[in-house]
């Protein structure tokens, strides 16, 4: 993939504070007359941020006001994943009326586990069987009229890995109607490397997505919190166990059955209103569960024609403050990917407003 960066050599006021490894800072501004520009773009190893401004101009938009060209931000890490102890901290600010697409061009986010025996050459510190947690935080501020489309690849936690991510989005609550901030955000996690027989074999995966609103006085209010905790619940005793392999509790597998991937899609704001309605309709028009065909003598339930919806178990709910929350589970990553990609392409909002590239992970 050809990635042409348009990084401007602007001296950032945050330069001094960005010295910590894994930190990144992005500010997208709209310079007059209508020129989206990254006024800040900094990052430190092992994080890498690349951007490009594709020539795509939204042809027709849900918004009546003129919309700016979306800027594409690629989230990359060395090795395409996170090692134990890696902390990634990305802060993004979308100033008024800007648009950003965020994707992960390296494919799935791998959550690695380094084998203690390999790294310490046979000598293992007692009681240190668990690897360090890797951690990723994403803090996004979306000002009024701005929109973010964040459709990454899923996280793939390897066997015995431990990972935590916190994604915080702050939207502007001072405006109503079509000037509100917009957000489309996907968060999904798989059972691991299926090809290697992994089946929810990691130790910990914690994912939290929060959306806050902030008013003129800077007062924050929690609008939505989506928190998933997949914890093998290993107690202290099993950690100090000298055996090579820990006794697995298998609780994550038990609690996710029958799915091999679970995920959440969050939709908010005027840009995604049509998509939100589309998915709500799709959900409510699913065939009733347990419906019987009374007209025939056959007692069997009416079988829905096989389609994507029948392979993916999902719910969609208009929760509050205009949010539509979609939750889904499927047996394979590919099934979920096809299902979601199919919905987003069929409906068209994402492609119309952000261009085909916004769907590159789907």
């Amino acid at each position, binding site marked *: 993939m050809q990635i042409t960066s348009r990084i401007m050599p602007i001296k950032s006021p945050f330069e001094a504070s960005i010295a910590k490894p894994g930190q990144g800072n992005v500010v997208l501004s709209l310079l007059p007359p209508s020129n989206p520009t990254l006024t800040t773009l900094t990052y430190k190893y092992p994080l890498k941020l690349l951007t490009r401004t594709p020539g795509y101009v939204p042809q027709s938009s849900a918004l009546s006001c003129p919309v700016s060209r979306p800027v594409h931000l690629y989230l990359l890490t060395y090795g395409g994943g996170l090692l134990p102890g890696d902390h990634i901290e990305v802060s993004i600010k979308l100033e008024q009326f800007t648009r950003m697409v965020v994707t992960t061009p390296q494919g799935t986010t791998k959550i690695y586990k380094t084998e203690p025996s390999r790294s310490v050459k046979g000598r293992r510190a007692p009681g240190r069987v668990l690897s360090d947690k890797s951690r990723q935080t994403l803090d996004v501020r979306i000002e009024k009229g701005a929109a973010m489309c964040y459709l990454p690849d899923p996280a793939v936690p390897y066997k015995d890995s431990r990972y935590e991510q916190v994604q915080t989005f702050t939207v502007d609550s001072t405006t109503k109607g079509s000037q509100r901030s917009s957000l489309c955000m996907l968060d999904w996690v798989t059972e691991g490397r299926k090809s290697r027989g992994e089946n929810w074999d990691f130790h910990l995966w914690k994912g939290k997505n929060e959306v806050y609103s902030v008013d003129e006085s800077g007062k924050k209010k929690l609008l939505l919190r989506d928190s998933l905790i*997949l914890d093998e619940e290993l107690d202290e005793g099993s950690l100090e166990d000298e055996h090579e392999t820990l006794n697995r509790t298998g609780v994550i597998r038990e609690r996710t059955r029958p799915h091999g991937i679970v995920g959440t899609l969050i939709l908010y704001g005027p840009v995604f209103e049509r998509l939100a309605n589309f998915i709500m309709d799709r959900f409510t028009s699913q065939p009733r569960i347990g419906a019987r065909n009374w007209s025939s003598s056959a007692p069997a339930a009416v079988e829905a024609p096989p389609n994507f919806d029948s392979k993916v178990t999902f719910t969609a709910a208009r929760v509050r403050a205009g949010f539509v929350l979609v939750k889904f589970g499927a047996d394979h990553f590919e099934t979920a990917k096809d299902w979601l990609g199919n919905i987003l392409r069929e409906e068209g909002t994402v492609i119309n407003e952000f261009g085909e590239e916004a769907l590159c992970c789907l």
Partner: protein
Amino acid sequence: MITKSSPQGLEKEILDLEYRLQNAKARLAVASGQEPSGDSYLPLPQDTAPLLSSHALFLLSDSALPLGSFAYSSGLESYLAHNKPLPPKITPTASFHRFLKLSITSMASTSIPYVLAAYRHPEDLETLDNDMDASTPCVVAQRASIAQGRALIGVWERAFRGTYASGPFSAGVAASEAAKAIEDFSDALKSCSDAADDLGPKGHFAPLWGIVCLAMGMDARQTAYVFMLNHAKAVLSAAVRASVMGPYQAQAILASKGLQDMIMNRIDREWDTPVEDAGQVVPPLDLWVGRHELLYSRIFNS
């Protein structure tokens, strides 16, 4: 705030233990056929204080408490529909046991932090209610939680407040703070409109349970335990009505050591969890509960 090591609390505990010791001795005497020596009657406890909080406990654990909990199956009905037909090797009872375990685990991880936070910080009730609302992923679960929460406020105001908010049964400073907080919250609830887009107070069950228990002098442990036990009762009662099992079998599960241990274990795990870290540990449960609306026929509201 009542702490576990306060002198009054310890005195109460000692009295309670003495009473139970006497009781056990008397029962041992009867069981082993011995002539009760001397006093053949059980002595009355010297102080009725230990029974005060027990009385509140009995009221709040009563399945006749009018919260309308019988209308909700907490996803059981949808779970049964989604797992039909069962694989040949799995019995309906085994399948139900799986659901009960998942449901209790999930209820503890999503709600116990809110129950305990409201108990420990009654002044934060409105924030807790907002955050709980923000964390409830579907309208079905939201409806169930709000209906029971508002019913609990109703029971408090119409039935319990008269006895527990003042007078000899008031359980101290923390309890009267809690009573005040419930009143403020109830006023806010009544004055806010019911518009769908409104972000005002909702009346979620978990935080209100914590604060009402505080107002009635329950200790934190009891508060969490009864919350979980009532949830288990509601699921089992739904199982009986959904013809998964008979009433005796349901009572046997309710009485079992397995269930007690499970509840204790989940409460221990969530005892110090801040509300910010409350979350779903059983992702398919959100799907089952959310898809309850898609069931062709329903006997429950959730």
